[in-house]
């Protein structure tokens, strides 16, 4: 137990241990798969035709949006060239299927059917069609485990899509509730705002929807406002998930993860000597 808690490369080796239970996992998924198969083979013709029509119209709508997206993307690239900033690359994705849900009511985790053999890596972001679901915390050869954003152990850096206000979104472990951490009472945030991933911490790619703010409570007795949010992704109903390969991150060997980042020496003197330039807020606008 102590090994698992304190020795960080253990997260890397745990993946191989899952090999022992992979056959069990597969067996457990059999009833679900049979039910889905039965459902598909028993659905009648009219229903299928209806579905087909609906999907076609959806496809048309999406295609229209995509046409605009293409032109916008090129325009964006041009503008970025003009600004001499780096171009954002389109990320490679991998489709994975859900094969298990955590049976423990205290943890919100999923098991998916992709692993080391498909180049899945620790800390890889996981999305569904509506938004960010979580990240990979354990990679086995054929399966991996995903920590959802609603788990108590999960936090994700986000920013308000409307105002650009940045904060940390923390899981609560109960249902679909999420909490924004340390929001000043004066921050520009209101119910209904969309929170997108801010890519600070360079784990999640920028700009994917994460959650919508459901309520903002300003309590005069408290130092910070209480901001609750609800995940955008359908965490409990999606069976197909997307694994995103962020371009700058490759599978990290376990030894590098154990290195504790040292506090930089340049930060210490600036706090003691008053520096007028340090107060200029322009630095905070860089990545929005």
């Amino acid at each position: 137990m102590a090994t698992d808690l304190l020795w960080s490369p253990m997260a890397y080796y745990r993946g191989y241990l899952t090999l022992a239970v992979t056959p069990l996992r597969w067996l457990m998924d059999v009833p679900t798969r049979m039910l889905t198969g039965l459902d598909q083979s028993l659905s009648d013709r009219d229903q299928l035709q209806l579905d087909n029509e609906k999907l076609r119209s959806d496809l048309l709508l999406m295609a229209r949006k995509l046409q605009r997206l293409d032109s916008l993307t090129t325009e964006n690239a041009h503008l970025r060239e003009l600004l001499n900033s780096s171009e954002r690359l389109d990320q490679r994705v991998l489709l994975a299927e859900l094969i298990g849900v955590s049976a423990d009511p205290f943890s919100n985790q999923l098991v998916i059917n992709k692993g080391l053999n498909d180049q899945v890596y620790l800390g890889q972001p996981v999305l569904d069609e509506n938004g960010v679901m979580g990240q990979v915390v354990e990679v086995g050869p054929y399966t991996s485990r995903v920590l959802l954003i609603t788990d108590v152990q999960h936090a994700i850096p986000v920013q308000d899509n409307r105002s650009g206000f940045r904060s940390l979104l923390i899981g609560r472990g109960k249902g679909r509730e999420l909490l924004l951490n340390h929001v000043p009472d004066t921050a520009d945030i209101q119910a209904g705002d969309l929170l997108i991933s801010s890519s600070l911490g360079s784990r999640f790619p920028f700009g994917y929807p994460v959650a919508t703010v459901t309520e903002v409570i300003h309590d005069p007795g408290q130092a910070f406002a209480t901001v609750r949010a609800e995940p955008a992704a359908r965490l409990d109903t999606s069976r197909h998930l997307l694994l995103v390969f962020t371009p700058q991150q490759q599978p990290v060997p376990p030894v590098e993860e154990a290195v504790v980042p040292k506090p930089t020496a340049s930060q210490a003197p600036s706090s003691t000597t008053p520096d007028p330039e340090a107060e200029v807020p322009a630095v905070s606008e860089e990545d929005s």
Partner: protein
Amino acid sequence: MVAPPARGSWVILLSFMLALMLTEIPMPEPMEWGRPQWTVLVLIYWVAALPHRVGPWYAWIVGLLLDILQGSLLGIHALSLALVAALMKSLHQRFRMYPVWQQALLVMVLVGLYQLLLNWGQALGGAKSDSLLFLLPSLVSAFFWPWIFVLLRSIRRALKVS
């Protein structure tokens, strides 16, 4: 004294595999809280019936598998199961004499102990519970005990596991 030949190891293994699967199979959210602890029930039965074959070490291995399966802190299920097995091993002679309802009561205590230990382990990992709802499985498990007991005993007698 010559030890009796071990027969039907596969029955014990298979029952544990089934229990592990039942423990991990997805259920609707409200029912998760009252899920009977199949692994503990099966373990209690085998320790009571064949204490010379299934003991704390056996429980430890099963617990490790459960840890890997659930992605919990490695060893916490193993430790809790081994403790239940050790307690059961010291109690098994009295346990066999009890009527079934009294056995169910003892099962409730053992599963409750198991849940407490697990909760302690989960608190190490950061997940705290704010109610005593996590003890609910011990009640449900006690309720399921008579059926498990009768089922496993008939299987054991039919297949002559000793």
